[in-house]
């Protein structure tokens, strides 16, 4: 199937914001990015060769980490360029249509949905917060807190401390989960929306740290500093807990149909 192309979707934006086009922007196949419009929406798309991006070749290619990484970064580059210009709803990676007419069909059929997504992400940016727990520090802190009333330097105090240490190890996971929940709640309060993603498999991240929360938040742009300060403050407040802020991200986690209730 030489020469056949499909249409890769990057993002949807308001038609008024898409004009006059994205000159010089290249997509996942190095192709020029173009616009398909059905008022009041526009889709950023590119024509991609089906011998690479067709369903079957693509599922093979996705098994190749280098290919996946390059494609994800190219997709993100176009999406990010769109977001820098105007509120945009990113499409999930590897959304390929048969032709432009199918793209128009999407813009017509899902107009309400997509317009609502654009309203939600307008003036807001996605930020990631990953929370790591230090097992030793956490159980130490718990044990100390529990042993304190017994006084210091006596045999009874030693035994109390020892008992506290052992039970602390048992409850540290429970406590960390509780803290993660509190942190998520407090960050969500400073955001328009927040959601918890599955924690990253250590095999993927290559880190041995213990991830207790992988949260992502849609934050009003004029409250971004406030949000970053809250992340710092939470880190200082909880010994043995480390928070890591990532972003700014295009609103990948908040432009989809399944949205978290406010």
């Amino acid at each position, binding site marked *: 199937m030489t020469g056949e192309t499909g249409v890769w979707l990057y993002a949807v934006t308001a038609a008024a914001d898409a004009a006059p086009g994205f000159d010089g922007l290249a997509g996942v196949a190095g192709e020029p990015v173009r616009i398909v419009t059905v008022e009041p929406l526009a889709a950023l798309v590119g024509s991609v060769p089906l011998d690479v991006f067709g369903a079957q070749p693509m599922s093979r290619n996705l098994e190749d*980490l280098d290919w996946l990484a390059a494609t994800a970064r190219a997709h993100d580059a176009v999406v990010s360029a769109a977001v820098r210009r105007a509120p945009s709803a990113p499409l999930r*990676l590897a959304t390929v249509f048969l032709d432009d007419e*199918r793209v128009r*069909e999407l813009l017509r059929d899902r107009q309400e949905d997509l317009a609502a997504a654009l309203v939600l992400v307008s003036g807001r940016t996605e930020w*990631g917060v990953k929370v790591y727990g230090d097992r030793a520090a956490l159980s130490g802190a718990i044990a100390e807190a529990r042993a304190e009333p017994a006084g210091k330097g006596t045999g009874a105090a030693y035994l109390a401390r020892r008992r506290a240490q052992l039970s602390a190890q048992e409850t540290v996971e429970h406590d960390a989960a509780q803290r993660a929940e509190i942190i998520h709640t407090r960050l969500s309060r400073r955001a328009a929306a927040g959601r918890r*993603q599955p924690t990253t498999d250590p095999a993927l991240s*290559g880190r041995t740290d213990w991830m207790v929360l992988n949260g992502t938040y849609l934050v009003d742009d004029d409250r971004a500093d406030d949000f970053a300060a809250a992340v710092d403050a939470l880190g200082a407040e909880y010994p043995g807990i480390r928070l890591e802020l990532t972003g700014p991200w295009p609103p990948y*986690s908040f*432009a989809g149909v399944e949205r978290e209730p406010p």
Partner: protein
Amino acid sequence: MNSVDSERRIALVDLLDRVLAGGVVVSGDIKLAIADVDLVQISLRALISSVSTLYGPAPESPR
């Protein structure tokens, strides 16, 4: 693994978390037949196996 590689890899995992699991999802009838859920599974499997090959015990990676 040096810290630049490590940072890049974490950034990649963060990015993949978002582009594979987030974004607007389009149903199958108007696009090429690619199952979204399967896609994520495939990719993460690919990641795990490739990452362990790329960044495994042998540090003499050509890249």
